[in-house]
């Protein structure tokens, strides 16, 4: 379970970017995080992937209060979180294979297992022929797939994605969302920051609406069938 209680965040002595953020993410839940530009989505994501400490309030990850954890314990929690950054943040001196393998090397998996797992995932995301290519020789969409593969390779407990379908065509975006759904069904908690309303309508999950530094939880709208639409018009 992930819990934010009265969380506030400010940079330096500036105004609070997030104020009194309060929500709970149940294990295995799927949420979209949306809100206008500058609402603090990226800041909230950085708190979720433990890239920052909150200025105030309590952040609890997988049942542990992060404010009371040692550096080593925080590192272990970070290993359970997969992040797809909006700007991908790939390491350009490494091949696509090595970028995806990186989280596995960090947790100390054997090279044999790494080879098997990475090759399998690269085939799955359609990069089987691009294993040794450097990120800057790949297209935007291919880079995004490398970033996504890197985030999910360890089957994280929490998957965070910042605008993951931004550079993808509809078919690839759909395929990606199906991958997230699949991971979610396997127990991974998923939070996707997105502006894509069509995507959010297509996948009716709960929404964390971020506005003016505060979070509102919105339940998914019930799917409307043809009968309801006709009745609605009447």
């Amino acid at each position, binding site marked *: 379970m992930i819990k934010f209680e009265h969380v506030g965040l400010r940079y330096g002595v500036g105004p609070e970017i997030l104020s009194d953020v309060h929500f709970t993410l149940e294990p295995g839940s799927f949420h979209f995080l949306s809100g206008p530009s500058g609402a603090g989505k990226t800041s909230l994501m950085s708190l979720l992937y433990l*890239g920052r400490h909150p200025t105030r309030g309590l952040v609890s990850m997988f049942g542990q209060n992060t404010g009371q954890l040692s550096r080593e314990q*925080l*590192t272990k929690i970070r290993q*359970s*979180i997969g992040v797809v950054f909006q700007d991908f943040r790939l390491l350009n*001196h*490494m091949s696509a294979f090595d970028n995806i393998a990186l989280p596995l*090397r*960090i947790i100390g998996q054997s*090279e044999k297992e790494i080879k098997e797992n990475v090759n399998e995932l690269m085939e799955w995301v359609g990069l089987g022929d691009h294993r040794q290519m450097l990120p800057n020789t790949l297209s935007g969409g291919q880079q995004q797939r490398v970033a996504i593969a890197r985030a999910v390779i360890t089957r994280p407990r929490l998957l965070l994605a910042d605008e993951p379908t931004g550079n993808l065509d509809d078919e690839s975006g759909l395929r990606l969302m199906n991958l997230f759904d699949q991971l979610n069904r396997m127990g991974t908690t998923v939070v996707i920051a997105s502006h894509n309303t069509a995507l959010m309508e297509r996948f009716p999950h709960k929404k964390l609406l971020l506005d003016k530094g505060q979070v509102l939880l919105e339940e998914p709208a019930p799917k409307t069938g043809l009968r309801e639409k006709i009745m609605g018009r009447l």
Partner: protein
Amino acid sequence: MSPFAKHKGRSLGIQKNQRQYDLPLNKDSGVLFLKTLVALMSLLAILALAGSFALSEMTNRWSSGLENKASIEIPVEDSQGVILSNEQMQRVTDTTQEFLSKHPAVEQYDVMSEEKIMELVAPWLGDSPTMQSIPLPKIISVSFKPKGNVDMEQFKLQLQNIAPQARIDTHESWLADILRFTGALKYTAVLITMIIGFTTIIAVAGAVKSRMAIYNEELELLHLMGAEDQYISKQLQRHTLILSFQGAVVGTIIGIIILLIINWGAGRMDITLIPDFSLNFVQKAVIFLIPAIVAGISMVTARQTVLRNLAKMP
């Protein structure tokens, strides 16, 4: 499992076309800077240490050459300034020799020949025939037993009783000054070596810090992926170790070549005051260990710098 485990047959040199680090360390211009810096520091350290070793050798040679030794001079005139005859001089010399032969602390003694004394005074008095007629003092060089623990004050008193005009010179006064001076030079050289070591630490820490600033984004990414501080620091410390070792080997080789040239030049100039620059086993070991020592210091410095900087991340 180390991220380096998959590479086989890796030597200390950085292999190309293989992933070795998660950070693009092999590709930046800092590589040459660090190698050059460490090479220069190693070169300076070798020269300073060699200076210290040479001074040690000189001090040892002088002190061992004059330790437990004394010179007894029997002057040509008595305490009233009256010139002694040859017979009188010989009598005092014989009495002194008899005293020395019976003294338990004396190992051996030798009366210096007139020819030898003439040779010694020739630079000041010249060697013209006129000078041959000038009366010369008698000089007896005495060696005491190394563990005889001679009481020099007592020895002087005993000598004065049998030969009141005899003067004894234990070389202590001027030797002590020389030894103090060379000792100060020796410790200055050691201090310079330490300053070089300290400068190396600061320079390596600065180089590592600047690299961390350059690769801050990559470091942050590794940190967010759950890389332990040790995992990250191992990469930078290994990289620094390799570069420092390579630089230090180059610096040491250049240093040794310079020392050989100095030794060869000193030999050709016939400078006898300075001893031959032959190193003993320990000194050779220290010189040859310099690359390992410098590389070790650099590695530890890099590790501490990285860990201290990573600790600032949340």
